[in-house]
């Protein structure tokens, strides 16, 4: 009566993780009539997932009806601010009217617990099997080929021709099976996030919103995350506000301040405090973000397995663009497609699965990662200027430029310019920096 069931070989593919990449893969395969088993360690999909954040839905739109998905607000405004640790803020805010019309630039805030659960339901409705509260601890290998997974349940081993590894940033299984080396500290960011509950009108008033409109605020500079490389963010949801910081783990380890302290300081910055004060804290979480870019990507394809999503390092963070969700869904989709093709052809070795890697490399996922590859080194090298000097210089220059006294405006302009040039190292220095950072915006 107990455990007479045995599902070895009953499934065409096992997906490790019911996050965005895993579910996208499972949904795609289920629609191609594959028998798919998704194994999720949380009590439900989404309970173990943390992001800022904004979900970008172009690929999602191809898989499901986004209007049915539980989203919070669409992004009607993007704001980028630079904060000095003296309390100054310089910001640019953008509200193109077009973002207020569907499809709202395919940018929405979501609550992961609700969204991921709904998304996984779509995969189950399409025929996938989901087991939760089960953690995959290892891959099963036979002569170097991956033939299944080992989980933490009794009788917890199960075999299938293909394993899709979508285990997220904490990719212990891939690492344990030597498919991926442990991320270098400089390639991972620590993220800490707080969610606070407010009355709807408070949120709408503070962020100048109405209806389903929302906003995405991003900040960097010493006033945001202190002595590290990273940034802070604020995203209003329907009835909550997400506030967080993300910065290099290397800095976390070396700089002697806890992530909680960094988040607290961010929240207390004079530009931030009025936006986030009050309310009730309803969630506090921490997570890792892969930031190694293209160079840190592991081999995506192996005999009997593929790696997708955050586990494959597919996250773009260049301060302006913070994208992981769309990359995860796109890579999951390609993974599912390639696996379905391979199963149909009856071969599941690395060669048969290779189209997955090809397609992902030809998609925006790797193209964007390659384009911005330079970013982290560049920023890290110039940290002091970008995060410490620049915010202060801007604030000083603005103060000077806009100073109201009886001196002529001419004088003010000169002094403001001088202050800026002081920070950049003269005109020549400024030109060098402009050249250096030309690729960031382009």
């Amino acid at each position, binding site marked *: 009566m107990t*455990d007479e*069931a045995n*599902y070895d070989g009953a499934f065409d593919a096992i997906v490790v993780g019911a996050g965005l990449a895993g579910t996208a893969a499972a949904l795609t395969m289920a629609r191609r009539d594959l028998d798919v088993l998704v194994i999720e360690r949380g009590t439900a999909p989404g309970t173990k997932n943390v992001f800022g954040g904004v979900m970008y839905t172009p690929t999602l739109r191809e898989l499901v009806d986004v209007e049915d998905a539980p989203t919070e607000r669409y992004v009607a405004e993007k704001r980028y601010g630079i904060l000095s640790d003296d309390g100054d803020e310089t910001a640019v805010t953008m509200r193109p009217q077009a973002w207020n019309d569907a499809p709202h630039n395919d940018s929405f805030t979501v609550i992961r617990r609700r969204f991921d659960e709904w998304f996984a339901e779509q995969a189950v409705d399409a025929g996938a099997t*989901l*087991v939760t509260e*089960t953690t995959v601890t290892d891959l099963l290998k036979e002569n170097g080929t991956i033939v299944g997974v080992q*989980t933490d*349940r009794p009788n917890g081993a199960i075999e299938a021709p293909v394993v899709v590894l979508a285990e997220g940033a904490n990719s212990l299984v891939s690492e344990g099976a030597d498919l991926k080396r442990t991320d270098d500290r400089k390639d991972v960011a620590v993220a800490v996030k707080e969610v606070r509950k407010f009355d709807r009108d408070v949120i709408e008033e503070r962020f100048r919103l109405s209806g389903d409109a929302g906003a995405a605020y991003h900040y960097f500079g010493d006033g945001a995350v202190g002595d590290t490389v990273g940034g802070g963010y604020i995203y209003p949801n329907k009835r909550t506000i997400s506030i967080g910081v993300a910065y290099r783990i290397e800095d976390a380890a070396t700089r002697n301040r806890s992530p909680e302290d960094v988040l607290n300081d961010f929240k207390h910055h004079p530009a931030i405090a009025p936006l986030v004060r009050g309310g009730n804290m309803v969630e506090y979480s921490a997570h890792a973000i892969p930031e190694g870019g293209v160079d840190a990507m592991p081999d995506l394809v192996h005999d009997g397995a593929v790696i997708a999503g955050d586990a494959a390092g597919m996250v773009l963070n260049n301060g302006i663009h913070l994208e992981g969700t769309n990359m995860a869904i796109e890579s999951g989709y390609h993974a599912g497609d390639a696996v379905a093709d391979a199963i149909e052809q009856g071969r599941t070795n690395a060669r048969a699965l290779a189209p997955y890697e090809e397609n992902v490399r030809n998609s925006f996922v790797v193209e964007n990662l390659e384009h911005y590859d330079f970013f982290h080194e560049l920023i890290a090298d110039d940290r002091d200027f970008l995060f410490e000097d620049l915010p202060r210089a801007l604030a000083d220059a603005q103060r000077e430029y806009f100073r109201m006294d009886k001196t002529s405006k001419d004088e003010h302009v000169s002094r403001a310019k001088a202050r800026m040039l002081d920070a950049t190292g003269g005109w020549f220095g400024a030109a060098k920096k402009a050249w250096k950072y030309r690729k960031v915006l382009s």
Partner: protein
Amino acid sequence: MNEDWNIVVCVKQVPDADDVTIDPETGRLNRSDAPAVLNSPDANAIEAALELRERVGGGRVTAITMGPPPASAVLEVAVALGADDGVLLTDRAFGGSDTWPTSLALAREAEELDADVVICGEESTDSSTGQVPPGIAAHNEWAQLTYVEELEPRPEDDELIARRDVEGGYERVGAELPVVVAVGFGENDPRTGGLHRKIYAETEFEPDTVDATDLGIEDEVGLANSPTKVGGMDTADPVARENEILESTDELTERIEEAM
């Protein structure tokens, strides 16, 4: 001598108690956002049932639940842990039932299943009356054992002995079969079900479905047959506390002396 016992375990699907909120605008309980989960004390009941079967050396464990169709999810949980089968008692007619008709339905099904032992959780986290187990026993005129810490089966005597938690101590009581047991909350450590069993529960397992007419009680259930009615629900005023943080133990000593 009966070495095989028919063990029926009653489970209930409830809103996740941690997620039920009070709507700040209306002051009313908001259950709709809370996911539906297995009533936590029932996890101890399922574990007790599985352990009992092991100790008796044979038998069948059937999980039963009364609820709308989505309630079959808790039967899946029971089967994933090791229960042999599940029965869903579902019928519009059950709507609005208090413990009287609820325990009647469960009692009739337990009889149908020829139960030797019916095991329930101590109480449910939503209504928490703890009256369903005695109700089942009363409807069937069976023996009962509540607030059970430990079970000791005596199949050779058709008897079940239990250690009951009583105020200031314990007692050991033996009951003739058939008997209804209510297991104390937290009295055992629910096991983790095997992987393949869990897959079975999620995929191939289908509970049997039974309605009020099948049980012959269509005129004895529902709101009309519920002697108790909920006259109102309101948020409990949180106990007003002074929330005074003191600096010195002297002050605290004073407060303690005042309180005595």
